[in-house]
């Protein structure tokens, strides 16, 4: 793994990290506090929500696919976990997180059925799944309106600290390392990018490509669900469309991290950098009280700049 990481430590991967550092230094000119532990560890915590989701997204994108069901998988998981925890019943409360994750995994499987078996483009199938989930949660909330509450564990995961480090961040890193091991220790990572480049040839190499797709999409579902659990623990509640702000930033983080949207090329480490960059950028634009118009313009321009640098490097190397 260390070896695999090392191989991935090329400059494209480091780019977003470097850019993040520049952002912080730039921002600190206006707000010296940005160099303070308080602000930085807070960014680690907030980055974790996007980060966890982006880990799953990276895996799906490596396949050359995309998962647009993130928002309402996240929302659904939050709704389920808070509903169970809200009952106050210790057993159900204990089930809150597992149930939410199970939900995420299940939706992942449903996504995979459409993509792997029916061969529907993930971009539209996951979109359709997303709108069904929206429908279900509207139906559910409107029909039952159960008391919702994040469990103590959820709060701790989202807002707690271990040795001064946000638990959410540690959790994210755990997920990242876990997946990285899975990618590099087993053939899984190989299969992902091989499929991302040429699914037919991979299938003809005796790889059960559908199983790989199923695995990848359910991992993505799990990650989105975990993101939902964390966000519910953070806001200490679930609410409709709480996942909407996460879809496009997730994709942005992955591609800024050097993973090719066409599949095949890329990795988790780059995405981690991409997540830091997006999180810091949003944070700084926000505290600068930039008008919304200018915020989105700057956001777009910076992303393009990053990608240009990336492709330029790519062409030299």
């Amino acid at each position, binding site marked *: 793994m260390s070896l695999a990481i090392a191989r991935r430590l090329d400059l494209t991967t480091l780019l977003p990290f470097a850019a993040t550092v520049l952002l912080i230094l730039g921002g600190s000119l206006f707000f010296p506090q940005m160099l303070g532990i308080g*602000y930085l560890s807070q960014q680690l915590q*907030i980055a974790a929500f996007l980060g966890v989701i982006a880990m799953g997204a990276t895996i799906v994108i490596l396949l050359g696919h995309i998962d647009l069901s993130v928002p309402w998988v996240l929302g659904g998981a939050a709704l389920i976990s808070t509903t169970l925890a809200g009952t106050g019943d210790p057993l159900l409360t204990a089930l809150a997180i597992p149930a939410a994750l199970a939900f995420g995994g299940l939706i992942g499987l449903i996504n995979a059925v459409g993509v792997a078996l029916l061969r529907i483009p993930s971009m539209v199938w996951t979109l359709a799944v997303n709108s069904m989930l929206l429908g279900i949660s509207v139906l559910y*909330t*409107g029909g039952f*309106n159960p008391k919702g509450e994040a469990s103590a564990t959820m709060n701790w995961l989202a807002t707690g600290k271990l040795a001064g480090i946000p638990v959410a961040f540690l959790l994210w890193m755990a997920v990242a390392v876990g997946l990285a091991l899975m990618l590099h220790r087993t053939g899984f990572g190989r299969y992902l990018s091989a499929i991302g480049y040429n699914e037919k040839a991979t299938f003809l190499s005796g790889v059960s490509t559908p199983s790989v797709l199923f695995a990848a999409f359910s991992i993505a579902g799990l990650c989105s669900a975990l993101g939902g659990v964390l966000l519910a623990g953070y806001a200490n509640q*679930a609410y409709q*469309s*709480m996942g909407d702000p996460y879809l496009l930033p997730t994709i942005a983080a992955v591609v800024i991290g050097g993973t090719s949207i066409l599949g095949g090329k890329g990795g988790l480490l780059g995405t981690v950098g991409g997540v830091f960059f997006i999180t810091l950028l949003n944070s700084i634009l*926000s*505290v600068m009280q930039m008008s919304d118009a200018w915020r989105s313009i700057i956001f777009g321009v910076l992303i393009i700049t990053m990608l240009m640098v990336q492709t330029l490097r790519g062409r030299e190397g």
Partner: protein
Amino acid sequence: DTYRPECFAPAPGTSTISYEAKEGPYKIAFVNGFAGNDWRIAAIQAAKAWAARPENAAKIEEFNVVSVGNDSAAQIAAIDNFIAAGFDAITFIAVNPTAFEPVIRRAERAGTVLVPFDNVLDTDRVVQINESQVELGRLKAQTVMDLLGGEADKILMVNGLPGNATDRDRRIGMMSVLENVEGLEIVEVVGNWDTGTSQKVVSDALATHGQFDGVVSQHGAAGTINAMQAAGHPIVPMGVDGENGVRMLMDELDIPGISASQAPAMSAIALEAAVALLEGNALPQTVYLPIPQVKSEDLAPGVNYFPDLPKSFNTGTGFPDCFAPFTPEELLGQTADNT
């Protein structure tokens, strides 16, 4: 001289509108925009609860509710469809305040009564039901400033969804107060009416701007409070909206201030207004409903907030001056599957 002014309070300097009476029972539709939002779900529930009350049910032949998403063209199409289908009145939450002039003309021709509410229109040609958004903002800011004895150095202002008239007016209302406090630094962040987003941006604001003397916020203030707690920020006066979770926190933490809500139950008032107009009554063109509000000291579980309902539940369950507020049971009694 207008119908039930205690409820349908005229906005300052507004005109009156009336149509000639029609025979009931009526066909009425409620055309909502986006549905995946707790406030809107509550609004739909309130509308259905209203239609289910016997005294109203008697007056109604058909009642349709549709949600068209954040697409003004689709909303125009929906309204046109109900006009075409010969509906007597249509209430709606406008996706866009300026997109409905042609529809209004077509409605007039067809003799269909239009009653926008919540997100209303920039027009004086139809009766509109809303709380004064400017007042809603002003009220929160004023209360906070009063609690601060009229003086403050730094105020945090959490705005709603940008590019949206409702958000604009509420901000204008807050500014109308805060601008007059001299030496006041106003730090604005964009919370998008979203608890999680508010929590993030407020955390950042606290980390970079340090302490605030007070906070004024639109929807999502629960996030704002969480962030302040996490940052160990002292309790300061707050003006917030009316979600259940926010009131819980206010009561629990003894946060001084006010919770004034844009109440989803106004969907029912809009229907009430529609019927009143169809029955030939005159109403103010712009109705400013009495803003449901609670000072923190008056917060009482089960009365103006509900510990065993979700935090995302909107407490604005009615306007006492208009009719008995809906009980949560009444709202939920309307489970989605018995229309």
